[in-house]
């Protein structure tokens, strides 16, 4: 779609990218780009990054703790040398051209110096002014100077100027001197080559649906409020309590589609995520408090994603979540108890009423006014709902060249799809700017490392007061005195804030002055501050692993506020334990691995071709291995999209482009015979006919696609009038489609059953598409769609609505009473007799079908399992490849250097496959753009003298980092340092103590244990 009208001369391009929105999407884009050689500006209007994900308690379908998986990414983003985070900032305008934009950014004052604030929280402790806690959705209060949540990045407080009365207390109590009342609004201009829009979307304002009583009845809450209620760090500490009286609600009703699929409020689209998150909330609520009985009132259950249906089934069976298909008419409060009576109409038209203790409104998402304004400022076209306009084959491109989009801003979507798109958008920006890659990134230079091996330990101990956070409870001077008495401690001192920049200079000077070769900081959490201190000692010429940190704040002073004496003693113990370990620590090397700058793409369908082309555009060689004799895969059977795009034409273009690209080598009729090696250094054997070809690759992208299920249900194959959806599509594409009276489509053929328990995701849209085509060609054709749930998620919902308007008849059937097809003679003709029980009128319906169309499942190719073994990557129960993490690493494998995209991962649509393919490339680029990859320093090592090659370590290693090797002295386990992550499961499992973990050796840990007084 996007043809660059004014191809920018490569000379003028700028090697930096602006990412707007600091939610999970923006963070992912920023990290991908920064890792692959671009300078990134990450702009967020809030005071901290993290977006909606930071507010969630758990995530579906794995029930992962949202904060657990998000916070490492936040920290990485905050510390990355090439990501500049601009908080409290909004983009107000853009000029220039693609490849070289000038973007003006308005930066609101924060009134707290980001450089100086240590996040200690004293200011908020004393601030006399209360305000509504918006992060907790108004369920509780916060102070005028505040931070959104304790793990926030940047960990810097902010003054809510609206609420602040300017009393000056925060400045008085701030020991870091970080309060700056003189802050003014500033406008800065950023020069960037591309822009990625990841602004997310806003929750639907539930007050607009007044029939549900939100805002009037305290016990009607929105789903996002309920997330906070569930959250362990939320207002009720994770106890499920209702706002009216703090009681634990027994019966909770979840009302679906509030502000979604609703023409009356202008949001006729489906918000895609609500069915799943409500189910998750129901399950988690039940987990928190077993007495809770959740009920979900829904229209269609749209659990269309990977492993979603399984999740729904577990919710029903294991957790007893009740699902009721109905329409809600009204919610009314019962005056005395403040319980709520929910009035609803069941599918069969019966009116019911039921009383609940709490009602959760599953609100949808809409683009906020703010975002619309942003789009206007940038000149980006919006669709009728206010989402960014995109097209199926260009899912990441806005109407303006050089500005890309990901996440909720193009349509409502869940976290993995957002993350996928974010990576994909990064890939698009990378394509555009590949010629200026690496031009603006900073690299830190360090002095040569001193060799301290063989020297006796000379330990320096730095004890932090953390303002009064530590010093107010723990007797810091006495801890320092005590530290001085410990063996090998050469120097000990205390600091007001050990993390302040002047203290870093002190540490460096002390290392020189006292000849220190081990450094201990006793202060806060290594999770946030260890990298800072490691960098400091590295700047002083010490190996970064010669550092040890002990936490005397979060785990001592703060939790023993009322027992200063015991806290001081504990702090001394902790310092002693740290010294014990520090005496044992040794410098560690990070293994550097060379990288072959060539990628391997397995599969030549849409995903594979897109991946190959994207990689080539980033400047890397690619080999594409396709098992068939033609490129195109599944896409070859699809003729047009719901949006009337000509699929075949797009396919032809793609094939032409890929064939013409000199960096791409295509192997048709080819198979992967063997893959060995590891990240950056794979060796692949490809067989093409009888020929065996050996190739080196730095990364592997798995894009083996999916196949159409061949049904044995409904007499398929026995009658030419019974065909699959794809066959129908083919028929429609031929000009001579005969006139048809009745067409019956049956959904979920081969999906959502015992054999294939998953939803194939695309079939509902496919049926709607074909039905509309049929109706378009001959409006008097009767089209019946027999379905279980209509899963036209996101903006596809619009087409579903159109189909209904066009007279397509939708009849729901239950899994236990499937439609039956019989052949019968009617008026001398043999007709297909379809019978189905219609739950709305509560009786069987008989249709004589001229055509019976089966919406068949997408199934994984059988070869997946062979390939999986070869690559040592997992596949799930259904035979699709299993990514490293369902939420945040949707295209990665746990094994580094191997990625997955397209239907190899799970059934998906064209735009989703394209996005995933590009995402895989983006992830791959963060490796391919480097000449060397640094492996982790904390890794396992094997003592071959002790190893009995029992293979137990191999079994527990989740990263396939251990192999058994033949040596002259027999078999022994060998650790692949490139793959090892250093978790230590092998070491702790080894029966002969043959494995140890560098940086956490048995000796070191034992020394801590025996440091007991």
């Amino acid at each position, binding site marked *: 779609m996007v043809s660059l009208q004014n191809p920018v001369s490569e000379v003028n391009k700028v090697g930096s990218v602006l990412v707007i929105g600091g939610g999970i999407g923006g963070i992912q884009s920023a990290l991908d780009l920064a890792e692959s050689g671009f300078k990134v500006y990450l702009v967020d209007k809030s005071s901290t990054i993290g977006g909606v994900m930071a507010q969630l308690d758990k995530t579906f379908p794995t029930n992962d703790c949202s904060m657990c998986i998000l916070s490492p990414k936040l920290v990485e983003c905050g510390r990355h040398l090439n990501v500049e985070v601009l908080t409290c900032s909004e983009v107000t305008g853009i000029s220039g051209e693609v490849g070289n934009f000038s973007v003006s950014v308005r930066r609101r004052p924060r009134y707290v110096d980001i450089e100086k604030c240590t996040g200690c929280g004293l200011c908020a402790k004393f601030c006399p002014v209360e305000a509504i806690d918006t992060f907790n959705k108004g369920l509780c209060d916060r102070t005028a100077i505040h931070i959104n949540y304790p793990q926030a990045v940047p960990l810097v407080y902010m003054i809510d100027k609206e609420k602040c009365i300017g009393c000056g207390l925060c400045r008085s109590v701030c020991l870091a001197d970080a309060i700056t009342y003189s802050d003014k609004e500033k406008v800065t201009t950023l020069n960037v080559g591309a822009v990625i829009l990841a602004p997310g979307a806003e929750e639907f304002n539930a007050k607009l649906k007044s029939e549900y009583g939100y805002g009037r009845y305290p016990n009607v809450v929105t789903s996002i409020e309920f997330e906070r209620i569930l959250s362990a760090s939320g207002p009720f500490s994770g106890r499920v309590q209702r706002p009216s009286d703090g009681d634990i609600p027994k019966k909770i009703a979840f009302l679906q589609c509030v502000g979604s699929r609703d023409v009356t409020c202008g949001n006729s689209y489906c918000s895609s995520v609500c069915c799943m998150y409500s189910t998750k909330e129901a399950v988690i609520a039940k987990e928190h408090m077993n007495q809770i009985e959740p009920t979900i009132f829904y229209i269609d259950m749209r659990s269309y994603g990977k492993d979603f249906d399984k999740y729904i089934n577990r919710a029903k069976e294991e957790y007893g979540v009740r699902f009721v298909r109905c329409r809600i008419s009204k919610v009314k409060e019962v005056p005395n108890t403040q319980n709520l009576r929910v009035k609803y109409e069941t599918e069969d038209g019966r009116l019911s009423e039921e009383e609940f203790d709490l009602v959760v409104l599953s609100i949808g998402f809409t683009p906020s006014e703010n975002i619309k304004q942003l789009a206007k400022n940038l000149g980006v076209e919006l669709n009728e709902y206010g989402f960014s306009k995109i097209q199926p084959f260009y899912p990441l491109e806005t109407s303006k060249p050089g500005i890309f989009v990901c996440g909720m801003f193009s349509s409502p979507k869940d976290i993995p799809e957002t993350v996928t798109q974010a990576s994909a958008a990064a890939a698009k920006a990378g394509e555009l700017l590949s010629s200026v890659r690496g031009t603006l990134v900073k690299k830190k230079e360090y002095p040569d490392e001193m060799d301290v091996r063989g020297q006796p330990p000379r330990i320096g101990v730095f004890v932090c007061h953390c303002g009064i956070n530590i010093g107010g409870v723990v007797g810091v001077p006495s801890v320092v005195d005590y530290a001085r008495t410990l063996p090998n401690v050469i120097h000990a001192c205390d600091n007001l804030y050990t993390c302040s920049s002047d203290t870093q200079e002190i540490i460096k000077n002390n290392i020189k002055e006292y000849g220190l070769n081990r450094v201990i900081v006793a202060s806060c959490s290594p999770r946030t501050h260890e990298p800072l201190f490691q960098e400091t000692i590295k700047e002083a010429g010490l190996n970064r692993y010669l550092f040890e940190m002990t936490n005397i704040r979060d785990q001592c002073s703060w939790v023993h506020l009322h027992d200063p004496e015991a806290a001081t003693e504990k702090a001394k113990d902790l310092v002693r334990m740290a010294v014990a370990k520090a005496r044992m620590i040794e410098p560690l090397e990070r293994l550097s691995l060379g990288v072959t700058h060539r990628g391997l793409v397995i599969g030549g369908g849409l995903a594979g071709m897109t991946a190959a082309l994207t990689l080539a555009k980033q400047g890397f060689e690619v080999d594409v291995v396709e098992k068939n004799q033609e490129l195109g895969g599944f896409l070859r059977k699809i003729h047009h999209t719901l949006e009337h795009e000509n699929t075949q034409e797009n396919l032809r273009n793609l094939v032409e482009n890929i064939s013409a690209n000199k960096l791409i080598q295509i192997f048709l009729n080819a198979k992967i015979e063997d893959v060995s090696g590891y990240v950056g250094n794979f060796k692949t054997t490809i067989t093409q006919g009888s020929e065996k070809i050996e190739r080196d690759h730095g990364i592997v992208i798995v894009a083996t696609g999916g196949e159409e299920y061949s049904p044995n249900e409904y007499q398929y194959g026995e009658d030419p009038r019974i065909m699959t959806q794809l066959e129908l599509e083919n028929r429609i594409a031929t000009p001579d489609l005969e006139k048809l009276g009745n067409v019956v489509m049956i959904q979920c053929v081969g999906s959502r059953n015992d054999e294939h328990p998953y939803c194939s995701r695309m079939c509902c849209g496919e049926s709607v598409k074909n039905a509309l085509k049929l109706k378009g060609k001959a409006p008097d054709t009767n089209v019946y769609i027999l379905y279980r749930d209509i899963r036209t998620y996101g903006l596809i919902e619009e087409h579903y609505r159109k189909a209904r308007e066009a007279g397509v008849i939708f009849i729901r059937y239950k899994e236990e009473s499937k439609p039956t097809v019989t052949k019968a003679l009617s008026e001398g003709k043999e007709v297909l007799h379809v019978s189905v029980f219609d739950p709305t009128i509560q009786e069987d319906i008989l249709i004589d079908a001229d055509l019976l169309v089966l919406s068949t499942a997408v199934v994984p190719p059988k070869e997946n399992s062979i390939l999986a073994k070869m690559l040592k990557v997992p596949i799930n129960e259904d035979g699709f490849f299993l990514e490293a993490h369902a939420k945040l690493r949707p295209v990665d494998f746990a094994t580094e250097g191997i990625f997955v995209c397209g239907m190899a991962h799970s059934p998906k649509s064209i735009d989703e496959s394209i996005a995933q393919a590009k995402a895989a490339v983006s992830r791959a680029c963060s490796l391919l753009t480097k000449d060397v990859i640094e492996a982790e320093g904390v890794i396992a090592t094997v003592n071959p003298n002790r190893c009995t090659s029992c293979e137990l370590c191999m079994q527990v290693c989740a990263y396939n980092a251990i192999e058994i090797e033949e040596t002259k002295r027999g078999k022994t386990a060998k650790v692949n340092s490139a793959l090892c992550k250093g978790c230590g499961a092998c070491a702790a499992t080894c029966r002969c103590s043959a494995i140890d973990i560098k940086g956490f050796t048995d000796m070191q840990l034992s020394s801590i*244990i025996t440091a007991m007084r």
Partner: protein
Amino acid sequence: MESAGEGWTPKILAFLCNWCSYAGADLAGISRMQYPPNIRVVRVPCSGRVNPYFVIKALQHGWDGVLVSGCHPGDCHYISGNLVARRRFAVLKDLLEYFGIEPGRLNFSWVSAAEGEKFAIVVKDVVEKVKSLGPAERLVKR
């Protein structure tokens, strides 16, 4: 070794995985949730790193109880390390019991990065439990 006389309080060694439980302990701190000062934390990359031998060593060196805490099942930063740990400690617990060590001295829990309060409760419980058992003397080297 001091005896369980007046003023005796247990010393408990806690192995916390870096990604979830250690973060949970941090959150307890940030939220100022108070718990008894009897534990000393050792940070390990993963609960899977904790060798059963460390537990025995701890009991030999005068620690009165051990807590090992990792990510919730499914949340492990290293995919499955916590499950490995769980299996391991189930066996170890039986073994220690066989030696005559009260099962209450070895504790295993899941604490996520968002469960500051849970961490505080776990510590309180463990301290109470070990307190009621008195000093661990059986394995102490004399």
